[in-house]
């Protein structure tokens, strides 16, 4: 069984998904109820969750869902927009290709041939898309859109400090898409409060995000049966269990963590205990008891008032703990233990096995430790004193039903993920085509090439130094680099610059600029060394060492001056300028700096739409124009849905006309809604959708196999037969 034409099928599938998803988009979106086979009832507006719950059967649909979930793993947001955008893109493509088919393909061609021809066409388009994504998009983002970006950081000081009001706007916009309408403001306020309460110092926000994201489940308590408005933040840490024994204590409270039973076991695993007489049994039992007693006494002498244990302790331990005024909490999960360890910086207490003398054990101070009763269930409430930049706080989430608690939980967790993403730089790389017409012919793909020069720094160097530069090309594309260089030497291009392209996944980049002069060649080259804590590329650079020298020799330059504006974290775009006018290509790499935001209500889409259309007008190649126009129009799909319920002055056409006018006349754009959204996540969404689309378009046949999935080697052998 084969189904032809993936694009058409994909459009049908995407349209179905769009109808479901579009009802949940934006501040006016509604809820969806999902039931699980276990009888649980979930309430959700989260696109990813809905798509998962549908258990789609169609292979193309499953592929889309897989693409969405891989996007979600990266960014934690944008599943609904993903589907809507994809659907509009497919629709646009469909409209264009239909037209082309009519004009191009004569009727006497057989249908079978036409199918394959279609497929060629799809492939062609998908290549154009890929090219667009790698070249045009970054260029437009870096060159045009970047001037509209706002920052979440307050600009008054040089230090990057978080601006509370803009964070509030950002969160409000985020929760508009995630939780029910009547709770949006409340939840976003709660989250904002929580974040600022947890943050010990202004600069420590990254650590807070990381910690909260990692230990989110341990940092909140769900309570059902109460109205949502009863949700609150409480200082300290709440453990989801009760005290085994509680001794009220105040003042100087010290805690200890143990990961094994305090009472020594009769026999340890792998050993054999031989009992020869009843007296021996009695003495060993007596010894165990005395030892337990001694350890607990020791703890008491250390002023320990609380014992946290990751295992169940025997009755004897609990009894002696009670006698010594030590409260005990047992059966902590490993996550809880590691959270406490991280917050207080405390390592578990290791029980001394042989000697009867004990060293001073690891303890930590605490403000209070008391039982907390929520909805007649008892919890342990610890007033830990944080030693890192995270001040422990817990969120108590109340809702009438568990499904709603879960929704709020996942929305809050997603918000932390989103913020964590937002505070990372996102690199863009593109090249600028200069006005010189001679060289504007063929844009070269120069992706993933990496140059590193492990040289000591020589400033204003006039000495000759052994050259050790390496040019590394990922994915074994070294050959193309060489040909490229050769092409240029034939053209007698006076200046060639090799640029460092950083893959987007690399986060921490430490730039060191090294100037190096070569006397004989009078070659002044700029090399940027980037030390990347990523082992794989470095290994590749070693293997490619041998090929570097001949590459380098070919690079000759007469009079090149390099002006460098080095910027950390590329807040400023790093640009190489050549004095000579005939420089054909400048490879720019800039980035979307951390904390870049735009107002909500489709501002990003409008801007990109406008610049893409402008770009398309200047374009010379037909498919590039076509792709740009399709993407530009598809972008409008999202604001169309957002403004659907609005009437009059706020209807979509009105807004569209006004916004475009504002962009043309360089006026600030008007938005009917308040709120901000992250640019980086929008950009990532766009690239993810384009990737998904190219994936869909490159499929020409869907072959349905009605057989149990088998191991790979089985299939191979069968094919041979």
């Amino acid at each position: 069984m084969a189904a032809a034409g993936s694009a058409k099928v994909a459009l049908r599938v995407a349209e179905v998904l769009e109808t479901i998803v579009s009802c949940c988009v934006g501040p006016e979106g509604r809820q969806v109820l999902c039931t699980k086979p276990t009888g649980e009832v979930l309430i959700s507006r989260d696109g990813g969750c809905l798509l998962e719950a549908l258990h789609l059967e169609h292979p193309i649909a499953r592929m889309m869902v897989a693409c969405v979930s891989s996007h979600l793993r990266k960014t934690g947001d944008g599943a609904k927009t993903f589907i809507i955008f994809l659907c509009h893109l497919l629709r646009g493509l469909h409209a264009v290709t239909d037209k082309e088919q009519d004009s191009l393909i004569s009727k006497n061609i057989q249908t079978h041939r036409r199918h394959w021809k279609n497929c060629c066409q799809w492939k062609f388009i998908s290549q154009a898309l890929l090219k667009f994504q790698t070249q045009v998009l970054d260029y437009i983002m870096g060159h045009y859109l970047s001037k509209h970006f706002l920052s979440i950081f307050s600009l008054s000081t040089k230090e990057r400090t978080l601006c509370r009001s803009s964070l509030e706007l950002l969160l409000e916009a985020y929760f508009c898409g995630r939780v029910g309408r009547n709770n949006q403001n409340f939840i976003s306020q709660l989250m904002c409060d929580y974040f600022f309460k947890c943050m010990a110092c202004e600069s420590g926000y990254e650590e807070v995000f990381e910690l909260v994201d990692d230990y989110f489940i341990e940092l909140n308590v769900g309570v059902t049966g109460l109205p949502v408005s009863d949700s609150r933040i409480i200082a300290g840490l709440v453990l989801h269990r009760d005290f085994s024994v509680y001794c009220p204590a105040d003042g100087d409270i010290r805690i200890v963590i143990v990961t094994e039973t305090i009472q020594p076991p009769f026999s340890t695993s792998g050993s054999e205990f031989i009992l020869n007489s009843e007296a021996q049994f009695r003495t060993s039992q007596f010894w165990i008891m005395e030892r337990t007693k001694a350890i607990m006494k020791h703890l008491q002498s250390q002023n320990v008032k609380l014992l946290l244990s990751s295992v169940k302790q025997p009755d004897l331990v609990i009894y002696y703990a009670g006698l010594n005024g030590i409260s005990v909490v047992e059966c902590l999960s490993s996550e809880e233990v590691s959270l406490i360890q991280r917050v207080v910086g405390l390592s578990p207490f290791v029980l001394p096995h042989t000697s009867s003398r004990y060293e001073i054990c690891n303890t930590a101070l605490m403000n209070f430790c008391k039982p907390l009763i929520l909805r007649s269930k008892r919890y342990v409430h610890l007033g830990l004193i944080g030693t890192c930049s995270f001040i422990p706080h817990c969120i108590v989430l109340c809702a009438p039903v568990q499904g709603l608690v879960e929704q709020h939980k996942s929305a809050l967790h997603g918000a932390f993920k989103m913020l964590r993403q937002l505070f990372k730089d996102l690199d863009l790389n593109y090249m600028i085509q200069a006005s010189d017409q001679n060289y504007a012919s063929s844009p070269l793909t120069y992706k993933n090439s990496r140059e590193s020069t492990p040289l000591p720094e020589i400033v204003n160097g006039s000495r000759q130094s052994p050259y050790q530069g390496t040019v590394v090309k990922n994915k074994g594309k070294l050959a193309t680099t060489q040909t490229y260089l050769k092409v240029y030497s034939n053209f007698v291009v006076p200046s060639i610059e090799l640029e460092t392209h950083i893959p987007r996944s690399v986060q921490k980049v430490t730039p060191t600029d090294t100037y190096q002069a070569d006397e004989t060649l009078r070659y002044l080259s700029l090399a940027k060394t980037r030390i990347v804590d990523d082992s794989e590329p470095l290994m590749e650079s070693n293997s490619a060492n041998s090929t570097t020298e001949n590459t380098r020799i070919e690079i000759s330059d007469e009079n090149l001056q390099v002006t460098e504006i080095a910027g950390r974290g590329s807040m400023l775009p790093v640009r190489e300028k050549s004095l000579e006018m005939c420089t054909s290509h400048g490879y720019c790499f800039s980035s979307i700096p951390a904390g870049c935001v735009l107002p909500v209500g489709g501002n990003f889409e409008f801007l990109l739409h406008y610049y893409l259309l402008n770009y398309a007008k200047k374009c010379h190649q037909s498919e590039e124009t076509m792709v740009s126009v399709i993407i530009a129009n598809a972008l409008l799909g999202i604001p169309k849905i957002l403004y659907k319920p609005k009437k009059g002055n706020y209807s979509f056409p009105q807004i569209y006309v006004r916004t475009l006018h504002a962009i043309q006349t360089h006026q600030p754009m008007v938005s009917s809604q308040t709120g901000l959204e992250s640019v980086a996540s929008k950009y990532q969404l766009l690239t993810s959708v384009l990737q998904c689309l190219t994936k869909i378009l490159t499929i020409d046949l869907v072959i349905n196999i009605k057989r149990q999935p088998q191991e790979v080697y089985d299939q191979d052998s069968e094919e041979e037969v």
Partner: protein
Amino acid sequence: MSRLEAKKPSFCKSEPLTSERVRATLCVLKGILTSSYGPSGRLKQLHNGLGGYVCTTSQSSALLANLSVTHPILKILTTSMQNHVSCFSDCGLFTAILCCNLIENVQRIGLMPTTIIKLNKHLLSLCTSYLQSEFCGCRILVDFSSTQTLLCLVRSIVTSKPACMLTRQEIDHISALILRAFLLTIPENTKDCLILGKSIIVPLKGQRVTDSTVLPGILLEISEVQLMKILPIKKSDTFKVALFCASLSGDVSDTGEGTVVVSSGVSLENAVLDQLLSLGRQLVSDHIDLLICQKVVHPSLKQFLSMHRMIAIDRVGAALMEPLSKVTGTQPIGSLGSISPSSYGSVKDLCTEKFGFKHFLHLIPNEATICSLLLCNRNDTAWDELKLTCQTALHVLQLTIKEPSVLLGGGCTETHLAAYIRHKICNEPESILQDDGCTQTELQLLTEAFCSALESVAGSLEHDGGEILTDMKYGHFWSAQPESPSVVDWPDLLSRCGCGLYTSQEELHWSFLKSTRHPFAPQTCLPHEAVGSANNLTLDCFTAKLSGLQVAVETANLILDLSYIIEDKN
């Protein structure tokens, strides 16, 4: 072959509320709930077709727990109510009926869900801020110097559970007992925070309700055989108690993860028994009078102890351990070896008692906040209902201590609140209209739906076909006998309003609850003397009702906001 089974695709349905089936099932559920509401509510008999236990009830907790609903929307509704009941015990039916009414009324007017939810939220905040405000006309502050208000509150709760099958005298008796049991759990001298004790409900079925009683301390049930063994208890000032949580059964406790090799002829059981007997000797030398063990006590040890005139009671279970340690004032002992003298507890007195056909050992504490409520009723189902009622009442009293207010019951709060909201919206709609961008008509439509939902909750208190009215001064709820002749002589037909605060002899004007009338401002600020003089008021728990109102509106909003249902059929 692996048993990989492909997941079946889910079932996706749009606009669930518009389907006829959902409406019908919602209507059935509402019928069940409204018919059980109030003192004259009809009883429901729940029984499983496959056999088992028949339950006669009119309480929401029992009803909702036993009903099995399949539709996801109903599931949301019932779980929401069950969660409310497990938090507050009271006002479950109120919440459920209000939620059903809201969904039904709002659907009828057919506005956009966005507008509905926004406006519902506004109206709810109007209600909650009014109920919490100083000038609220249906809230009474509890005066703890007399038990009058608290007794009224308890009596209202007991009266509203007809499945307990109590007569008037029995209601009075049980209400007084519940209040006494509650007062016994309050510690006499408290520092900064109040930690309430516990009332343990001891079942005694087949006796008259008036045989129920409250005793301070703990009643431990013992068999007749055990009773025979207990020799007459000698009198003394205090009785020393040893409370064990460790097992005294003589089993060899766990030996770790390794292997234990025992030479032939060596008996570990003997060794442990020796240990137990030496423990017994220690107890005897420490002059212990009573040994209580959570788990099992070895018969030889029991024998040894009874020889030394010590009472041993085992298998009391984990639930009783906390009250026992409170009564005796000690921590449970978890060791079989050397016991420090500080871990023995004591009780003031110890005696055996017989209630009905059961024998009990009664532990009377020196000073503790534990009491036992010995509850009697004629049969099993009525006893279960009575027990639930007692638990509800005790919980409500605890909530009232935390938040010392009560609301007028008998439907008066609902009608009063509805009148207040109507008036408020009619006179000053600007506050809501301003920040919401909805029209005046939309607001009025929704207010009408909201208020009539509240009023019809009050209306479902009447089950005998009587007329339901409201007065135009206080906005209280009145119900008249069925088949009253005409609308002439209301003061003679009506006697008191729902909560019992006002009589019909005042100069009042009445109007049918279902009819349309002009919005009027109900009189706010309850006069103090009016409350003081009336001694037989019907009252409701403030915290439970306020939260119930919020939960009902929130749940209704949630259900109205649903645009799709995705059912996983795997």
